[in-house]
């Protein structure tokens, strides 16, 4: 029973709002990361390629992350998040910016997020600015980190396995032990909250950083592994199984919390679909391309070689000797 009907919109509105926010977030992350992948090369270590054990390491980190949220004091948590995003942004945008531009930009973005998260959340209206700023930080971080992984050798099979693992994890921490709901309620107004989102009135729709990373990673890995022919399929998959089904599932099965803060285990939909799609692609097109093969393909945009600069025209002397006639 809804005790405060004036504070809550209908479930249909919430679902549509969530759908729009998720589609915008997922597409910005996926297409932004793809734009980056085709144009920018990240430095990588001398040795090392992303492999299955790295997926396990990432998954383990993800598993203990909620514990950090609950165990660490506020200042430590914010410091850890700030450090994480500073590192991600500095690695991702170092190839594009001068050191001055890079560190001023990071300072402004992170600083604004910290300040706004402390000073602009007392009223409903400025929350949209808070979300917009936070979403920008998250988007840039997702683009950088997804590229760091994919350009580091992460393959579609790794993304698919990771997404499948998240499917189980999400289902457990959302449906069995409502840890996600707890974290969301506790930390949604913290600076550097790891999600993109927006607020209309008292309604809030968000899509988590982990989900965005999976969508961007899946799109990049599919593009890198099998080329532009599979890009429409990858994006469709992200929209359908990453946005539409999770966002509207509340209308179909009643597992949307009736609170304003909507928690949906998106990977529970996307993970199995990602794995099945990977298996189908492998069966149809064979093994994935390596990064070396990808870089040698036409899927990478290379800077157009500039024509040589013509020699500067120098002022002709006032008295120029007549040219010698050419003898043949």
């Amino acid at each position: 029973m809804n005790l405060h009907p004036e504070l809550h919109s209908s479930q249909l509105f919430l679902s549509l709002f969530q759908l729009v926010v998720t589609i915008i977030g997922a597409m910005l992350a996926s297409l932004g990361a793809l734009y980056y992948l085709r144009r920018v090369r990240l430095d990588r270590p001398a040795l090392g390629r992303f492999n299955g054990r790295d997926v396990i390491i990432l998954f383990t980190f993800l598993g203990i992350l909620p514990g950090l949220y609950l165990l660490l004091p506020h200042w430590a948590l914010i410091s850890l998040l700030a450090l994480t995003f500073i590192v991600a942004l500095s690695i991702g945008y170092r190839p594009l910016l001068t050191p001055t531009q890079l560190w001023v930009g990071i300072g402004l973005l992170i600083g604004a997020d910290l300040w706004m998260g402390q000073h602009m959340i007392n009223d409903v209206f400025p929350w949209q600015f808070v979300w917009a700023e936070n979403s920008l930080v998250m988007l840039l971080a997702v683009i950088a980190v997804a590229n760091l992984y994919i350009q580091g050798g992460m393959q579609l099979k790794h993304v698919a396995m990771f997404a499948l693992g998240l499917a189980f994890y999400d289902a457990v921490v959302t449906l069995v032990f409502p840890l996600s709901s707890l974290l969301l309620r506790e930390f949604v107004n913290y600076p550097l909250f790891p999600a993109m989102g927006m607020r209309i009135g008292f309604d809030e729709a968000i899509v988590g950083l982990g989900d965005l990373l999976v969508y961007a990673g899946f799109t990049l890995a599919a593009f890198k592994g099998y080329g532009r022919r599979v890009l429409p399929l990858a994006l469709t998959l992200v929209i359908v199984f990453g946005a539409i089904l999770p966002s509207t599932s509340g209308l179909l099965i009643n597992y949307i919390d009736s609170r304003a803060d909507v928690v949906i285990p998106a990977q529970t939909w996307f993970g199995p679909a990602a794995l099945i799609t990977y298996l189908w692609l492998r069966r149809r097109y064979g093994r994935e391309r390596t990064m070396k093969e990808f870089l040698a393909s036409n899927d990478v945009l290379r800077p157009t070689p500039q024509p040589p600069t013509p020699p500067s025209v120098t002022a002709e002397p006032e008295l120029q000797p007549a040219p010698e006639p050419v003898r043949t």
Partner: protein
Amino acid sequence: MLETGVRQFRMAMGMVWGRRLSTRNLGRLVDDAIATLEEFGEPGADAGNVIDGPFSDPAVRKDFATRGVRRTAKRLASQSPFYARRFAAAGVRPDKLDLEGMRAIPVTLKRDLVERPDDFQCADVARYLATRTTGTTGRPAEIWLSRYEMELWPALGAISGLIRGELMPDDMLQVNVSSRATGSVHLNTAGCRLVGAACRVLGIVPPDEALDSLAERGATQLATVPSYLAELEVAARRRGMSPKDFRLRRIDVGGEILSTSLARGARETFGAEVRDLFAMTEVIPVIGRPCGDGHLHFDLNTGLVEYLDLDTGEPAEPGALATVVVTPYFPYRDCMPVFRYDTRDVVRCLPAEPLTCEVAGVPGTGLIEGKADQLLRLGPTEVVTPRQLVEAIEALPTRPWPARFRATVHNGRVRLTMAVSAIADLDEAEVARHFADRGLDLDLALVGDEEAIALRPLRSDLHETTFAARPALIGSLT
């Protein structure tokens, strides 16, 4: 990628703390290097730092060397009877040792190793494999190696080889060194095993057999000694073979002087890059590599290399001849380590000018000029090195490879004894001009070819017989 980072961190910590490195961890790093090359086709941008180290800064270099020397000396003082006595006699404290202070410790000579090998054995290590020097420059020394060393060195070599693109999984390495060089043979085979490359160990077999193997079975790499390379080149030329008959992409030689003429000839005949490496059983794994500018650069990650004046024993001046003195660091040397080992290999120090070669960050010298004991002193400052003689003889139009000669000094002049066939078709004036053009004013003594073979022992003389090369003693000839 993440776990590779963890492995590299473990390896780095082992180096920093001076503990034995985990060879299993290194083996996995080899796998990581292979995976990296499969995915990206090349290592990452900072690969140079991983294998060559951050040694362009002299202060970093000095600090790294000081820590390596102290770490090594501390262990030797407690585990090596020979060095416990030597350090005590020199009055040095291993934990306070620095690069200047270590000059108080006398250099170790091959004679020490030959006469008292057991004193060099560290007490905390079990022997595994003995390897002997070939003895071409004197009585052979026997070096015992531990199981750890036999696992460590191939792994380090495999990582370096993969990152440098020198040994890849699709390579086939043919090894033509003496089969008694167990250390060298083991390093080659174990390195290939780790990388996934194929390895064929033939030894110093008749050159035609080795050529058949190179030509018909597709070796891409050859490891041998210069004198045997010379025999292979001569045999290949006799058979009219050319680069199209081989798949070789690299030939590594070491242990003797490789002349520029022979290197050029081998390049032309086999169509492969020829590299003159410095490697010595006593100081493995410290090795020297040539650069494109013809310098020799030693690996400073694994040991300290000093260049000492031949007369004073003090650090040699730029441009001077110097003997190479090597101290392999712990934990790279384990069973019979040496400290300030005087290789008696002579190099010429480079002028005190900045280097511009591809490894300019690592100090370099000229190539090995020969053994100190084989230098010919014509006066207080005038010296003729074995390299000068080898270069001059092997540059003769007859291509008398490998150079067979004996050089002595009589009344202030060099007397060079060599095979008469080496100067066939040249008159006396042409011969004199040939040597004079190379800065050599000498008296020539000529001997028959058979006699010439005994003038100078070479590693290729350690021929190993095979049934294939022997004439049939029983059976029909039809």
